[in-house]
């Protein structure tokens, strides 16, 4: 079992509720914008607190309202790739990549720095500032930053949405390699059918 999620959360007038249980591989949360897909990822990451429910990833219980468990985000070991990359603007690419290294050093290290840089093809970007990167470059760095933080699972929030067709293809290949070679469970949010068909091991419709 990879993700076991059963959460409810009221945000303003909308009620977000989801119950799912997935196997290994990439699980796509598929649905229209505004269905609360990002909120689900935020709840798994610990950035948004469910009103009630339970979140288990692998063997780790991250949240359980009944058992009064609510791990802070820094202890959840999530590798979160945001829709907008969300790189730290005041740190160069190298420093962005190394930000989560401290946790990775304590934990199981998925892959080393040089390995990750080669894997993502971002060696030539290391001394650049995030604002000088193209959308595809920024997204590859964001994936690298997440991978280097010693994650036990990945959360990806429409990582392709801001990219043109050529870049989408490039990032999709990277995601496929993460899925197949690193074998990390991935929770992947998208509203694009073709993307989901290609990447997902299983699909949850919202």
């Amino acid at each position, binding site marked *: 079992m990879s993700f076991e999620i059963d959460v409810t959360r009221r945000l303003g007038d909308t009620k977000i509720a989801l119950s799912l249980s997935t196997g290994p591989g990439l699980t796509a949360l598929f649905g229209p914008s505004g269905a609360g897909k990002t909120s689900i990822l935020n709840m798994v990451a610990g950035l948004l607190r469910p009103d009630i429910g339970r979140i288990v990833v692998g063997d780790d219980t991250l949240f359980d309202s009944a058992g009064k468990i609510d791990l802070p*985000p820094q202890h959840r070991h999530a590798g979160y790739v945001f829709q907008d990359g969300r790189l730290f603007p005041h740190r160069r690419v190298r420093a962005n990549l190394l930000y989560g290294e401290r946790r990775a050093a304590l934990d199981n290290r998925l892959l080393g720095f040089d390995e990750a840089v080669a894997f993502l093809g971002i060696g030539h970007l290391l001394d650049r500032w995030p604002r000088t990167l193209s959308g595809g470059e920024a997204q590859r760095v964001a994936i690298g930053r997440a991978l280097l933080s010693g994650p036990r699972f990945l959360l990806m929030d429409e990582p392709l949405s801001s990219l043109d067709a050529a870049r989408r293809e490039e990032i999709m290949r990277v995601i496929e390699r993460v899925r197949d070679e690193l074998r990390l469970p991935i929770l992947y949010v998208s509203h694009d059918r073709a993307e989901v068909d290609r990447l997902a091991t299983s699909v949850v419709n919202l």
Partner: protein
Amino acid sequence: MALLTPDDWEIIALSLKVGAVAVGGTMPVAFLLAWLLARGRFPGKLLLDGIVHLPLVLPPVVTGWLLLLAFGNNGPAGRLFAEWLGISFMFRWTGAALAAAIMALPLMVRAIRLSLEAVDRRLEGAARTLGAGPVRTFLTITLPLSLPGVLAGAVLGFARSIGEFGATITFVSNIPGETRTLPLAIYSALQVPGGESAVTRLAIISALLSLAALMVSEILVRRAGSGRGGHVL
């Protein structure tokens, strides 16, 4: 420099000392207040906001009088400082620094608060998912991203401090070498027949110091923001 008399230099040195101590002493308080106002949710926030900004709108002579009541030798705060820290404010340069600090506080809080509010909190969330606890997130994300505002606040506060007049003269009077900062010296020179040349010299120095402060802030802000290219002010 022959253009300036030894007295002028003493006045300048005193003004700089008063300004630096005022800003240095106020900064932690200003940052804390700015943090509370930007991020905090508590009853009485509006009132706190009002009190912090009061020196901006209150006649400075009233601020000076209130300082006299609170920090005078018989005032409650004045006694505390004298007993616990051995600091006395009356007719001393420390009193001038305190008056300047109070007058500079709203400007500093304002600048820092604006920059704290401008920090993208989603970046803090990203840092948390990467393994950083609240303290590390603050030190590595929030603080550096708000640094331009902190520096701008410090320089604005410094400029305000070395220009402080009303509260200072009310609180600690106009004593040469102790509380006679640039504006007070200019005021004194104006009262003396034939003081025009001193007034001119000191006024030019005031203008130059203010201009230099603003330019330094601009340079600092640009350097701090080199990763983003932006600047606040």
